């Protein structure tokens, strides 16, 4: 047998049917659904009299629109349109009989945090969701990617997706990370190298010692942002850490089924001589704590650097950099660590897990946030919130002056009440610094939870290593 990549192996195990030109019908093991990209899909099923083909493999949870303030049971905290979308998901989940975690359930949270937490996401699976950050689940060695609403309807109706195979890219992070450098710095630094379109047409497998050393939470952070590098999916081969994380989760297999699953999961790695269409290698020790300065995730630099000059770039990027710097209200040559911030957001499917909150709390402990700053911590799920309270992290954040919120997407995207005002500048642990992403004319600097925590203390972008 010819050597295969991890992606090849998972792909091959899910091909229902293949056309001559390579177009495949791919079987979908898990379909995650949220309130914003699903209403039209369910409506389509209703109009055509179709059912959900595999309701037991379909998991729905509201997250995008849902307010995260403690008073969110009060309907007045939502806009009419948002309320309608959440109500529609409630009704559709019931009508079509899919698994559902309503807002009132402690297990509710961001769909990409809930899936792994409940053991829905397992190695070797195909996982889709009407959300581009579905790439997160690749951390388990699952082939996971975002789909549009037409495809959501297609998966609901058929439990398959029409797909052409992507190319294989290997991103290897060798050696050890330096102190203060995290999974977020890895994933942002990779995008800094590849550019936001560098991964287009590829599935990325992240490997190397620095990746192996990451916890499952860190691996999810890395895979989450594969999409920002243009790749639909990111993958990490499962290992003992993966199995340990999955074991005992509510929907993970038990007993003999667990053993049977393990037999296959242990074969899920890229063969030594597998073919790669593209290979990128980065030394772990070369990665620094980074922040973004512009309005594209590729606009990333070490915190010790300065805002670039548009003339440093070539082609269309000259205009793009000029536009970014103007939008961000910065000046070329300005030290990144001199940039003052108004707001800190810690949360999102990128960095809203327990380990992220621990890392931020370790920086914040015993300190106060800068006067006048607005700072919030939004756990990724109700269970993450409960665990953080049990570990005393919530108290650390509240003592420092952070707001301690309920679970949801919150300020990652401007769809719920948590939004930036025009010109407001945010140190954010989310995944996109696009124009207007966090609110009309809002200014976003992406970074790790530890770096965001450091910025909250000083009031400006800060090298977390100075506070360690």
């Amino acid at each position, binding site marked *: 047998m010819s050597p295969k990549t991890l992606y090849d192996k998972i792909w091959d195990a899910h091909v*229902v*049917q293949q*056309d001559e*030109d390579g177009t495949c*019908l791919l*079987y979908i093991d898990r379909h995650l659904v949220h309130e*914003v*990209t699903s209403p039209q899909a369910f409506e389509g099923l209703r109009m*055509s009299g179709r059912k959900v083909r*595999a*309701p*037991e*493999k379909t998991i729905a949870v509201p997250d995008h*629109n849902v307010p995260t303030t403690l008073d969110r049971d009060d309907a007045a905290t939502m*806009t009419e*349109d*948002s309320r309608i979308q959440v109500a529609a998901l409630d009704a559709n989940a019931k009508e079509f*009989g899919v*698994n559902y975690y309503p807002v009132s359930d402690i297990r509710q949270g961001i769909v990409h945090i809930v899936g792994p937490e409940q053991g*829905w996401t*397992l190695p070797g699976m195909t996982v889709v969701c*009407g*959300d*581009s950050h579905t790439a997160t689940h690749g951390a388990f060695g699952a082939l996971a990617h975002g*789909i*549009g*609403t*037409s495809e959501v309807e*297609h998966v609901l*109706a*058929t*439990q*398959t997706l*029409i797909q*052409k195979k992507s190319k294989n890219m290997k991103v290897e992070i060798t050696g050890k990370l330096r102190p203060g450098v995290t999974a977020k710095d890895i994933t942002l630094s990779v995008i800094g190298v590849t550019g936001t*379109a560098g991964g*287009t*047409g590829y599935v990325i497998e992240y490997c190397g010692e620095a990746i192996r050393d990451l916890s499952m939470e860190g691996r999810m952070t890395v895979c989450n942002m594969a999409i920002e590098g*243009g790749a*639909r999916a990111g993958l990490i081969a499962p290992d003992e850490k993966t199995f340990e994380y999955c074991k005992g989760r509510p929907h993970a*297999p038990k007993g003999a*089924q*667990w053993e*049977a699953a393990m037999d296959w999961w242990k074969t899920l790695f890229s063969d030594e001589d597998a073919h790669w269409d593209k290979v990128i290698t980065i030394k772990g020790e070369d990665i620094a704590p980074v922040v973004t300065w512009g309005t*594209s995730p590729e606009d990333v630099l070490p915190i010790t650097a300065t805002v670039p000059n548009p003339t440093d770039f070539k*082609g*269309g*990027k000259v*205009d*793009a950099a000029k536009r970014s710097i103007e939008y961000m209200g910065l000046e070329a040559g300005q030290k990144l660590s001199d940039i003052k911030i108004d707001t800190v957001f810690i949360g999102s499917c990128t960095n809203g897990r327990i380990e992220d909150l621990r890392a931020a709390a370790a920086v914040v402990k015993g300190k106060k946030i800068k006067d006048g700053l607005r700072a919030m911590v939004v756990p990724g799920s109700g269970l993450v919130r409960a665990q953080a309270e049990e570990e005393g992290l919530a108290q650390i954040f509240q003592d420092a002056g952070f707001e301690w919120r309920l679970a949801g997407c919150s300020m990652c995207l*401007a769809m719920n009440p948590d*939004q930036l005002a*025009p010109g407001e500048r945010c140190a954010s642990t989310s995944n*996109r610094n*696009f*124009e*207007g*992403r966090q609110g*009309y*004319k809002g200014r976003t600097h992406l970074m790790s939870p530890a770096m965001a925590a450091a910025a909250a203390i000083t009031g400006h972008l800060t090298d977390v290593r100075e506070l360690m």
Partner: protein
Amino acid sequence: MTGWTRIEGRATALPVENIDTDQLIPARFMSTPRSEGYGDFLLYDMRHGDDGQPDPEFALNRPEAKGARILITRRNFGAGSSREAAVYALVDAGIQVVIAPSFGDIFSSNAINNGLLPARLDAEVVEVLLAACAVDLTVDLESLMITGPGVSFAFELDPVWRQKLINGWDDIDLTLAHADEIAAFAEDRKERAPWVWPAPVQG
């Protein structure tokens, strides 16, 4: 969805890189029902000034862009979120073809599912077209050619996507023609990987 083979229409230039889906339709509009039409939301924050009024200087607001059916833009168009609403906004605004050197992967799939052609051309060729705008162009799915006054370029398109655009096929109908194969595959996989089958949903 209705199919098409040829479009003749006004092309307008938007010489900006990395137009992501958050710009194509800011998230705050995505809770609005589609029945109201998403055309007015297209590139809303780029099209409007701080006073909320349309910016007359912005490419799509200029008189020569009126009635445009073709948009020419720079690399990595439609990157970002999977929101199909980004495509709805383009289609509802009358755009049927976007020409760029590269597109976000999910955006391209969404586009095809709504009859919108993402036509890929080399960056140098795109620059030629950008410089020529606004012009009337013809986009032909049979010949895979884009032609206009004094210009003629071939573009790339996946053959399956081409058939889908021409025939206006509904994917679900096509796939359900394979319902027996899907059922057989599921049976077989259930044997090999029973752990993929969770317990029935608890009401």
